[in-house]
């Protein structure tokens, strides 16, 4: 049958019902997450996850089923589709499903409609207080330590990693949170950014406006792969010297590089 895909997916609805969140009568959880909006949001993401990018997740069982965890991965240039696809994999391919919380760029909080939609689906402004609060509440935090630098990558950079921030690791140590590294592969091919409109971006107060060889700043329907690695634990409490922290961040970065290699191999085997 022809026609638009349904606005609400049955699969997503079932998975959202299974989430370990306490919704009240009106359908809100303690952080103001809205069950109905979660269903719409993930139904939309599912279209991209299952049909458009046909994402394959490897090693999803590395993500613990309960308790706090920090997922740390590489950012893709252009439009950050990686975050959304990781969220989709956690909800659709993990049993029991888990809700990932990403950290949103600050400018979004002042954009009409986007501001509260992101909040209601658990994607809060990127503030240390938010990251801490989410981990204290035993949630799943999705972190891209490259930050905006990672979004600014161009296609020619391939899967090279930008400098990692170190705040995430101190936070993980302080809150005794395991770090699960992951790699997102396929984003570079799907969104071959050749340049950024820096002036326009500044005028519009957004970090980047990507330009693709085919001009439209939208990703191509190419296969993407997510590879999760084993949880990493570090023996510390976050009060270590910068040197020690930098060494451990280096270890996380190295693991992500290996996972990217795995992802590229999987992607070749699966075909485009």
């Amino acid at each position: 049958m022809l026609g638009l895909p349904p606005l609400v997916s049955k699969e997503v609805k079932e998975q959202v019902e299974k989430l370990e969140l306490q919704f009240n009568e009106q359908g809100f959880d303690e952080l103001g997450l809205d069950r109905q909006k979660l269903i719409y949001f993930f139904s939309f993401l599912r279209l991209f996850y299952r049909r458009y990018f046909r994402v394959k997740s490897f090693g999803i069982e590395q993500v613990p089923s309960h308790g706090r965890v920090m997922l740390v991965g590489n950012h893709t240039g252009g439009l950050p589709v990686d975050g959304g696809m990781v969220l989709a994999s956690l909800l659709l391919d993990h049993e029991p499903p888990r809700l990932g919380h990403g950290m949103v760029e600050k400018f979004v909080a002042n954009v009409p409609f986007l501001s509260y939609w992101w909040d209601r689906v658990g994607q809060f402004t990127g503030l240390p207080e938010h990251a801490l609060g989410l981990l204290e509440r035993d949630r799943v935090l999705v972190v891209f330590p490259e930050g905006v630098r990672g979004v600014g990558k161009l296609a020619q950079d391939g899967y090279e990693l930008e400098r990692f921030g170190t705040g995430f690791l101190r936070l993980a140590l302080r809150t005794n949170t395991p770090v699960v590294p992951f790699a997102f592969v396929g984003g570079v091919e799907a969104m071959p950014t050749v340049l950024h409109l820096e002036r326009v971006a500044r005028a519009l107060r957004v970090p980047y406006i990507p330009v693709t060889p085919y001009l439209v700043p939208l990703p191509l329907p190419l296969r993407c792969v997510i590879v999760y690695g084993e949880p990493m634990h570090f023996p510390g409490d976050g009060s270590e010297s910068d040197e020690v922290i930098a060494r451990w961040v280096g270890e996380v970065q190295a693991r992500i590089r290996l996972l990217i290699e795995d992802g590229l191999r999987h992607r070749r085997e699966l075909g485009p």
Partner: protein
Amino acid sequence: MKVLITGVSGYLGKILATRLLARGHEVIGMDRRPWPDMPRGIEMHRVDIRKRPAEAVFRERRPEVMIHMATLTHITAPREERYRVNLNGTKALFEHCHRYGVAQAIFIGRHTIYGAAPDAPLFRSEAEPPLAMTTFPALADLVAADLFAGAALWRWPELNTAVLRLVYTLGPSTGGTLASYLGGPRVPTVLGFDPLFQFMHELDAAEAILHALDARLRGVFNVAGPRPVPLSVLVRTTGRKALPLPEPLFDRMSGRFGLPDLPRGSRSHIKHSIVVDDRAFRKATGFDPAYDEQQTMESFRWA
């Protein structure tokens, strides 16, 4: 116990005084405003907290506890008056407490002092600095009063001081800041923004203050009731209709066409959430609100 309540003729003061009386406390009320059908047994002093007669009440009556809720907002008073009452009044009262041997002081503050901003965290703990001066200048005097009351903790350590930062209250009395915003049939909101609003039933608010009294609470605490709800849900459940205005129009429409007159800066509180973390208060006092969000909104709706 002998309890002095300043601002007793306010909607929350009345509830609190009545409850204290029912529990067998001796209640002394202080307010400039009358309390027409005041229950028997409450000793009322129609005085201004900044003036000599207020000091006389401390000197002659020697209360053991002061609950200070005589603060004004931009809704009821102009700026000069607010500064006089909120700052000079609070200062005078705390000095009287110190001079006349009051054992316990409870300052009733507001959660709005944290201020709303796009880059403010969702849950504010007591350690968070108040931002309201920058985002909502009309609240600056309340911020200062709150911080001044908190300073009593080190200035007069023998005076057991608690600063309670209460969220908005709602209830059958239809009193309070939030109730006045929701007063009309149409509530102006900012198009494309739907912040979380945190409120508690007014009876729960009184109960929380009693808990602070019983626990001889000391320190600065956020006090909240049920979970916050989005403004759109609040407006709908209280039987109102939202009137979403594009942001540039918002200030111009304020006070016209039957819409409430909102001061500059209040817009930030309608765009962004102020939600406080009240875990410390619950842990210290065992307080548990009796009314959930639905019951609280309904109690206001059908008042």
